[in-house]
């Protein structure tokens, strides 16, 4: 059952298998039908499953998500695509104030099993609004799960798990690595949500990164003369702090690497939790290497904006030498 896939092919495979697995699953969004999505994530699915289940919608993000809430309340399992995460904000109200609240509002009578997919993140020289990392906004919308894969296998397994979940999920796909590399993907492999992945073990410092930044973390760990443990939370929220804290207790040093701006980025929450639960184990303050506190620039400047392995190495050096 295992085959070579890149990240976007893994998305496609997960959608295909969930459409097959559960007849209530609907895959839809702008250009998702005949066109197979602008990144081809739903390529071939309309032919396979028909226009009732895989379809293109009018161009309106709030409409896509708000009707998804309604379809979910009526027993469907919608998997809408928002073309780029920068357009999620048009649907933010429906996501935060409705999708995330129906279970609470109805004391468990109603639920919204909807998985909202959106390509996110920078580094691909795209237009304005096409390169943001909005995970913190959704991590502050209690009732949601925020999931970010970093490998084809995780993409496949986490997406299937997200779709099967009876809660709403914002599933952010790191589009910079959509086609960056392939690996063997086992279509039988089960992955738990809310369970971080130890990307590589190490004893000198813990480096926490997700999405496309996991590759940058790996590069930096290679370059530096130290034994770095890399932790990928995979589910940003609710967070597996246990794995992170355990790792930090072991290494005594922690650095968070993310694309989003530093202030109120999810790294701030991780640093706080480490302080609350492991301060006596720390040899140095928690370090953050992130995007700067500016709007993601038009792409001539994006190489300065995007955290890279050089900045990560410098951060690790400061952390280790403290």
């Amino acid at each position, binding site marked *: 059952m295992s085959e070579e896939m890149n990240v976007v092919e893994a998305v496609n495979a997960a959608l295909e298998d969930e459409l097959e697995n559960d007849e209530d699953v609907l895959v839809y969004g702008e250009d998702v039908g005949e066109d197979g999505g602008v990144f081809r994530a739903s390529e071939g699915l309309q032919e396979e499953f028909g226009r009732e289940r895989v379809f293109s919608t009018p161009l309106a993000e709030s409409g896509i998500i708000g009707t998804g*809430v309604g379809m979910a309340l*009526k027993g469907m399992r919608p998997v809408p695509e928002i073309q780029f995460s920068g357009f999620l904000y048009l649907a933010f109200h*429906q996501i935060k*104030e409705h999708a995330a609240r129906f279970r609470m509002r*109805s004391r468990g009578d109603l639920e919204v099993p909807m998985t909202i997919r959106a390509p996110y993140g920078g580094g691909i020289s795209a237009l304005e609004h096409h390169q943001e990392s909005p995970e913190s906004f959704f991590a502050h919308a209690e009732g949601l799960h925020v999931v970010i894969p970093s490998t084809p296998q995780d993409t496949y397994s986490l997406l299937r798990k997200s779709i099967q979940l009876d809660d709403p999920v914002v599933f952010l796909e790191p589009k910079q690595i959509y086609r960056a590399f392939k690996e063997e993907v086992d279509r039988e492999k089960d992955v738990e949500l809310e369970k971080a992945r130890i990307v590589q073990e190490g004893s000198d410092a813990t480096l926490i990164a997700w999405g496309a930044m996991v590759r940058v973390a790996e590069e930096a760990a290679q370059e530096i003369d130290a034994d770095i443990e890399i932790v990928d939370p995979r589910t940003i929220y609710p967070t597996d702090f246990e794995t992170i804290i355990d790792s930090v207790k072991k290494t005594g040093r922690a650095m968070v690497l993310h694309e989003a701006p530093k202030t109120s980025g999810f790294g701030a929450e991780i640093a706080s939790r480490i302080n609350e639960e492991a301060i006596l184990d720390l040899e140095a303050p928690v370090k953050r290497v992130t995007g700067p506190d500016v709007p993601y620039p038009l792409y001539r400047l994006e190489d300065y904006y995007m955290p890279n392995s050089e900045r990560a190495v410098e951060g690790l050096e400061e952390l280790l030498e403290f």
Partner: protein
Amino acid sequence: MVRKEVHSSTIEKIEILDTEDESEDHGISDEEYEQLYKTMVLARKFDERAFSLQRRGEISTYAPHKGQEAAQIGAVFAMTDDDWMVPSFRETAAYIARDAPLDKIFQRWMGDANGQRGLENDLPVAIPVGTQNLHAAGIGMAMEKQEEDNAVVSFTGDGSTSQGDFHESLNFSGVFSGHNVFIVQNNQYAISLPIERQTKSETLAQKAIGHGIDGIQVDGNDIIAVIKGMREALEKARNGEPVVFEALTYRLEDHTTSDDSTRYRDEEEVEKWKEKDPLKRFREYLKDQDIWSDELEAFEDEAEERINEASNEAIDADDPDMEEMFDYVYKDMPEMLKKEKEQFQDFYGGDSK
């Protein structure tokens, strides 16, 4: 230059009471007329009671529906149990007509979400204006996909027709053949803003036209017009043809108990609409048609008693447990939330009562 008409449309209005068709057979039995009247009285009494409970501090804020009973109760009368209802926040009369337990409705107004449990095919109250129409559109789309022959009836106000979500709802429902009746209760005001400054549109029903779906206007203070209009609209909706249904009505009270409508409208205008009070008109109609009876005359007292009983039950009901705040956020409580819940339990002694 070639210039020709490529589209034209009209919006019709349905009126029955005080017209020459008044005495026709409307497909409503005498028993049903009596029941409709009773439900209207019950809803009116609920409104009055909720108002006084707010003044007494038992309810923090209440949104009255006085004057809109015909629009809500007439609409529900045309529905079946299999149909779904998507209300906004002023649809207490509609909930009553859908047989939601009175004490539960009070309980929710008293700030306990447990009052919104067990609503079957009816959604809980939606407060952000107009956003619930998309849920209705989605439910209507799902009904089409599930090949059902039921429909979903949503309620929204005149102010919400300015919202993007309202228009996206009509558009999606039109494109995907949603089983929708989008009721717009045009009660003339969005808090302080009168309808003529909300929109340049002559009617709200015509908002449908730009989305390629049907629109109809009815006298929303005429319960028979509402019922007949809704029966037509529901027939279309069940068939995958969505309808915008504008009920022309008037909010006889303030927007909510926090509002003071004397700041933006004059007494004269309100008095004029009091003449068109739907309850008053329906009572006159029943008398004219010899349906009126001593039993109906006596129902006011019975209604008052039932409302008092229900509100007392809600007042006496146990407060929700502190823990419930944590229990309905996720289907399975995440580890980090379990820990936080424990911290709160420790602080509050493990027993919030």
